[in-house]
């Protein structure tokens, strides 16, 4: 019995993923193609990145409902930053790079200097709203002891309102077409499998998340804080700082996801990301992270997000209507939590 429970514990989610793929493979001849798997990764990458950040929040027994709206704010700011001024043909990071390099011509050696400076300026300014948004929520949770559910529910509305307020809800256009590469562009082709930029970024974030969770002091603090905050506090874990930082991680992940989302839409969309917080929470829970904290796995979250993505894509290819799709994914979430419950019962009985 113990072996069986261990098997479910380490591979359960992967097995479900494989079974789903096989099922859809029998339903549609197009499902198990390289092209389609590239598509699934493109369609899932935004959720993978947000859910990776969410894994830290939930592992610490907190919740972040503001990510969907924060994604819209970050996306709008990304689009503003990249918007080309029709007179000069340049956008803000380009102008900044020109100015910096005119001032200190040999800041960096080589011809790539301009790209590095403008890219750096862009990345810094595009990630900043995520950092601030997450940090502010975390600060209020830690400093005033307000439950994160309430704080982030408030920020969900604040950020959505802000995203619409910036342009009176009109989409932001005028980005350079080259920017589309990030969302849908191909990095390289591996025997017909298109490795896209968004997939590489998403997997990079997952890898960073795995390392952060499993191999750093911060990761252990997150799990300890989520498992038993009082015991952790008494044994010297910086509980408050850890709680604050999980929201920062979530905010920064959301800002990275916003860059991909904006590139894919090729507009700054103030309505983007509605309901994404629930998609991300679903991916984390399906992946096996406990909603009560103390147990979290980033790899599980990756598979959780992929399972949702495969369900949407596979049912799409089968021609199933959207109403049914929602019912199936809802059922999947309950099934995953039941599996988790069953798994823990097995542990206790052994």
């Amino acid at each position: 019995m113990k072996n069986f429970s261990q098997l479910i514990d380490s591979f359960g989610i992967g097995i479900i993923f494989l079974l789903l793929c096989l099922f859809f493979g029998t339903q549609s001849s197009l499902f198990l193609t390289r092209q389609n798997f590239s598509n699934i990764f493109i369609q899932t990458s935004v959720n993978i990145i947000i859910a990776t950040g969410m894994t830290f929040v939930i592992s610490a027994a907190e919740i972040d409902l503001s990510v969907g709206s924060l994604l819209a704010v970050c996306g709008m700011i990304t689009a503003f930053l990249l918007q080309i001024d029709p007179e000069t043909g340049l956008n803000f990071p380009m102008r900044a790079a020109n100015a910096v390099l005119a001032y200190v011509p040999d800041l960096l050696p080589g011809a790539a200097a301009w790209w590095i400076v403008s890219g750096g300026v862009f990345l810094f300014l595009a990630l900043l709203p995520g950092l601030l948004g997450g940090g502010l929520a975390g600060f209020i949770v830690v400093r005033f002891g307000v439950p994160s559910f309430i704080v982030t529910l408030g920020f969900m509305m604040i950020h959505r309102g802000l995203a619409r307020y910036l342009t009176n809800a009109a989409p932001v256009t005028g980005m350079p077409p080259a920017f589309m590469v990030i969302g849908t562009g191909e990095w390289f082709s591996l025997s017909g499998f298109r490795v896209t930029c968004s997939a590489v970024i998403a997997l990079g974030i997952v890898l960073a998340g795995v390392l952060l969770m499993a191999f750093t002091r911060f990761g252990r603090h997150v799990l300890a804080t989520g498992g038993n905050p009082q015991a952790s506090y008494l044994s010297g874990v910086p509980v408050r700082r850890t709680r604050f930082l999980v929201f920062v991680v979530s905010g920064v992940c959301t800002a990275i996801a916003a860059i991909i989302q904006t590139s894919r839409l090729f507009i700054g969309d103030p309505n983007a990301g509605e309901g994404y917080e629930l998609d991300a929470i679903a991916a984390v829970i399906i992946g096996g992270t406990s909603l009560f904290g103390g147990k979290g796995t980033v790899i599980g979250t990756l598979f959780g997000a992929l399972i949702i993505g495969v369900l949407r894509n596979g049912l799409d290819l089968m021609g199933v209507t959207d109403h049914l799709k929602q019912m199936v994914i809802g059922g999947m979430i309950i099934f995953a939590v039941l599996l988790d419950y069953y798994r823990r019962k097995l542990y206790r009985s052994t």
Partner: protein
Amino acid sequence: MKRREALKTFGAVAGSLAGASLAPAAPAQPYKIALVMKALSNPFFHTMQVGAEEEAQKLGVTLLVQGTNKETDVTQQINIVQNFITQRVDALVIAPASSSGLVPILFQAQQQGIYVVNIDNPLDEPVKKQIGLTCPFVGSDNALGASLAAHDLVAAMGGVGEVAILEGIPGVINAELRKQGARRVLEAEPHIRIVASQTAEWETEKAYRAFTNMLTAHPNIRGLFAANDNMALGALQAIQAAGRSGQIAITSYDNLQAVQEAILEGKIISTIEQHPELMGAYGVRAAKDHLDGKAVPDQIDTPLDVIDYRYLSLRKK
């Protein structure tokens, strides 16, 4: 593309002559045309789907239909288009959820040899040009329709009084066109004054709230143009709740069943029928024409009708 038709005829003839023995020799494959719509919960798109399905059956093409849950879910619609590219459909007929956000993926479809037909909500011309997408538009003149509705409103008010406008989602082109079309007529009237113009994002519940507040802020409002019927229905509830029934003239857009009933009860003056079933049908036909090698014009107009008490009462009889 002519070759395909020939094969089809050959297949049919050969099949009927020789039965199963010739079956491996290229069975007839009808064109696969995809219809991508917005919120399937909106009856407008259901009518569009029915029109497209009937036309597809008449023309002998296979129609695949998908739509999103919410009007504003651009990403989901992009994913749907991407999955249709994977299914290698011959043509895509789409009512875009965003006038610019869908352009990149539709361009990708076009590059894969899929013919794109834009229906209902026009794509943004500058963005199309920037990215390189070319596709015909099938739909009605939204500004004209709104002007007709505004004209009815002015007539119902006797040309005097304060009016309000409930707008669609800002930045969506048909919402902008309807607002402009209505404003053009209302602003030209010397004794009509627009005192409030706000978005309720096409939604009944949001229109209820918005119009309640408008009535509080401007108690002398005597007329309302709602850019779609869902919002007109919300405003109607707000008027009833405020005890102002029968005092405010409303005209709107889309000709939903519920609004027809309200017109017959005298609660709404008129609405605009923009024939979504024809948008669906003409869209499918334009796709089929192109695949058959016929020329398709850049713009195909669908007709507009003003639906008022006279029209409905005479039709019902």
